[in-house]
């Protein structure tokens, strides 16, 4: 059986933002209900469920299905940092492709603590010494990108301006006001060169996707043509793995590149076949790095790519029409599935005022601590 045998039957999202009065379970229930309603699949219609979350706690996915009386089937709780939701989807798609299930429920839920992300990934001594400052690692990568790819502070601001402009049209986004480059550059310096508005906000939300084995239905459903997870190779000190040391070797491919190569090969597609991309933009430099690591532009051209408007809504390859994490904020376990929800709407032509005209093929990308990178290719 080919990878084209898995299709998306329905999607649902609970907006990303801050919802102090709501539990993470309630948000998950809302997203799951919406995806089931859209798919037309009833409560007994699934053979397995896969839940992505990082801060949800023990058996978080079970709590969502407990609330719906939908337990009994296997429920897999999956943690893979920022790639958690994608990892859940990859397991579900593989199980369907292997003939194990006909229909699977995939959801991601999160209620992030406020402030700088704290992660049990870091040993206590590293936290005590100030060596566990997440935005500082983003900043070190941004500095290297500025040295090696000619990326400027203005390019970083342009990424934020682009994504915030896109986010205005997304009702699921946390920030829905367009901002100017001047405002971005005037926001507080968190870790040079990164200003506050160049960093996404950890927040809350949920997203759900119903996957099923394709039955050759009419109406050209959105198909999952590749869903790939890769971890980092040893040695790259500034990969999302954030080890304490690495080798003096710039030729080690990052996990995003490994995942992208495998996904393109599986699908028989290349970057030039893409119509729309949702990529990791935990900070503005990360989006530019993603352009290069995903092969959306040649090495060294990331700054020029955003400067030329190539990744705007009306550009050669729109990136983050949803507004990206810079507009939506990042609920870790839900963010990758939020991207899949967005691409599904885009490929169906259901994205309303943020529709990328004629989009047929899309790529969703995440990379997070561990490190894990996911690349999901969808087409219609």
């Amino acid at each position, binding site marked *: 059986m080919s990878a084209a045998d898995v299709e998306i039957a329905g999607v649902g999202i609970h907006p990303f933002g801050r919802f102090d009065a709501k539990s993470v379970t309630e948000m998950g229930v809302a997203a799951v209900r919406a995806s089931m309603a859209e798919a037309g699949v009833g409560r007994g219609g699934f053979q397995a469920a896969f839940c992505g979350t990082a801060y949800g706690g023990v058996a978080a996915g079970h709590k969502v299905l407990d609330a719906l009386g939908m337990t009994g089937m296997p429920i897999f709780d999956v943690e893979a940092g920022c790639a958690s939701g994608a990892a859940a989807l990859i397991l579900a798609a593989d199980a369907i492709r292997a003939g194990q299930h006909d229909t699977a429920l995939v959801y991601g839920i999160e209620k992030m603590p406020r402030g700088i992300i704290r992660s049990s990934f870091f040993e206590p001594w590293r936290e005590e010494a100030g060596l566990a400052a997440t935005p500082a690692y983003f900043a070190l990568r941004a500095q*290297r990108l500025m040295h090696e790819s000619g990326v400027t502070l203005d390019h970083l601001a342009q990424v934020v301006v682009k994504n915030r402009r896109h986010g205005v049209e997304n009702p699921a986004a946390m920030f829905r006001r367009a901002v100017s480059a001047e405002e971005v550059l005037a926001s507080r310096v968190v870790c040079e060169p990164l200003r506050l508005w160049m960093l996404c906000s950890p927040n809350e939300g949920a997203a759900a996707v119903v996957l099923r084995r394709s039955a050759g239905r009419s109406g050209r459903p959105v198909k999952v043509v590749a869903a790939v997870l890769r971890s980092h190779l040893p040695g790259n000190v500034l990969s999302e793995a954030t080890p304490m040391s690495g080798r003096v070797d710039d030729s080690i491919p990052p996990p995003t590149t490994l995942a992208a190569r495998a996904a393109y090969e599986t699908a028989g597609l290349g970057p030039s076949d893409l119509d729309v991309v949702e990529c990791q933009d935990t900070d503005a430099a990360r989006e530019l790095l993603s352009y290069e690591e995903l092969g959306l532009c040649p090495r060294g051209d990331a700054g020029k790519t955003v400067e030329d408007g190539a990744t705007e809504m009306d550009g050669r390859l729109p990136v983050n029409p949803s507004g990206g994490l810079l507009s939506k904020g990042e609920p870790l376990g839900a963010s990758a599935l939020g991207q899949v929800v967005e691409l599904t709407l885009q490929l169906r032509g259901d994205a309303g005022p943020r529709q990328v005209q004629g989009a047929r093929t899309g790529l969703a990308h995440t990379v997070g601590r561990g490190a894990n990178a996911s690349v999901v290719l969808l087409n219609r």
Partner: protein
Amino acid sequence: MRDGLFTMATDGSARLLGGWCGTCGERHFPSTASCPYCSAEDVTEAPLSPTGTLWSWTAVTAPPPGYGGEVPFGFGVVELPERIRVITRITEADPARLRRGQVMRLEIVPLHRGEDDRPVVTYAFGPDER
């Protein structure tokens, strides 16, 4: 903070304690029981060069979770002659005063006062003034 990260000689000079793998020859920091490159267990603890060059840097302006010291503080990556890059605090907290390839030297610096009011120290690299 944690034992085994660095040593200090009686003259005050400090060295980071790396791991040297007898199987693949790679160096790493801090030293671990298994080689993080080839899984071999014949790792020997070996001091690393006290000087290197600056590869990337920033300054942390808000206290990260679990951190007991003051802000702002410098933070970066220093390349050592053993061909490894090490994540480290930087003694200079103004990024504008640092430059790529700058020669940096290891220092042991105060971090904060511990629970029993004893000073806790850490390693950092600073511009080499020698």
